[in-house]
């Protein structure tokens, strides 16, 4: 058990070293995440340039308004997350819990919109390659390719969010048990980095998936 006074693991000399180490570790982890998404982005870039018109046709089948709405929701959750870290830095336990809960809620809203208002619809409309594909317009195969990438990218992104919700539940419990303090809030800060990263991925996914070609 580590209470807030002796919050340094035995392999470290002091708290600064420990904090710097976990911060660096987290950023390196995010670097691997960049490369992980990067693999799919590479494929996306190639196909998007090869099959320009098909990808635009596919993009037009998505609802840009919902996409924009979801962007706002996710940015909002990023704000509440930043404020949660802020509250943790100041050692305000109650505020911290409030902000964690609001982040979780906003994340939940995002996932609800994603699954229920988008994926489910796309599935019913026959826009789910491999499962239910009825699109019969020109270049159906390459439009399907767009949707494959759409589902993979949003799917991996949503998986990250679900994992994030789980971690937040744990953090909330820890906060409730008073495990954090002005001196010890490392986990909150590290998780914040993760959550903001997931937000950034979406910031790129939104234009790349929803806004291809002019929508006039």
């Amino acid at each position, binding site marked *: 058990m580590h209470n807030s006074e002796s919050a340094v693991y035995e392999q470290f000399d002091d708290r600064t070293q420990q904090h710097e180490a976990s911060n660096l570790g987290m950023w390196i982890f995010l670097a691997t995440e960049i490369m992980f998404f990067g693999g799919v982005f590479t494929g996306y870039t190639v196909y998007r*340039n090869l099959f320009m018109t098909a990808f635009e046709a596919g993009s037009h089948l998505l609802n840009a308004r919902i996409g924009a709405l979801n962007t*706002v929701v996710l940015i909002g959750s990023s*704000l509440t997350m930043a404020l949660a870290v*802020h509250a943790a830095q*100041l050692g305000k336990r109650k505020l911290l819990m409030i902000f964690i809960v609001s982040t979780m809620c906003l994340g939940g809203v995002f996932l609800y919109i994603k699954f229920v208002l988008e994926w489910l619809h796309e599935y019913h409309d026959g826009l789910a390659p491999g499962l239910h594909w009825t699109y019969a317009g020109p270049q159906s195969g390459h439009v399907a390719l767009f949707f494959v990438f759409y589902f993979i990218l949003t799917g991996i992104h949503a998986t990250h969010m679900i994992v994030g919700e789980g971690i937040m539940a744990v953090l909330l419990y820890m906060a409730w048990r008073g495990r954090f303090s002005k001196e010890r809030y490392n986990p909150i800060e590290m998780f*914040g980095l993760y959550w903001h990263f997931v937000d950034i991925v979406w910031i790129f996914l*939104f*234009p790349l998936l929803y806004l291809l070609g*002019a929508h*006039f």
Partner: protein
Amino acid sequence: MAEHIAPRKLYIFVFLGLLVMTVLTWQIAYIDLGKWNTVVALIIAIFKASLVVTFFMHLRWSHSMIRLVLFAAIFWLAIMITLTVGDFFSRSNEQPWQASYTVSQPMVSSVKR
């Protein structure tokens, strides 16, 4: 901890900035800029991402090592994309299939709806 604590107001401003840019990028999609639509959208996305990284993720107050890590990841990602895409768009006519897409003005997109 020797951590920088940013004022809460700053976070709110950043949030507002992100909001404005989201609306902007969404609305610009309804204006026909030809191939520039994608470019503009990406530029805005990069701006948004930098805001998040700099302020929400505290890069502004972080050790330079952290910046190096971020730079390295972006750098290698850029290499992966550039060299891969470079192959696809430099295939000669003798190895065609894709080649026919690139004879002239490959980037023009003018879908009629």
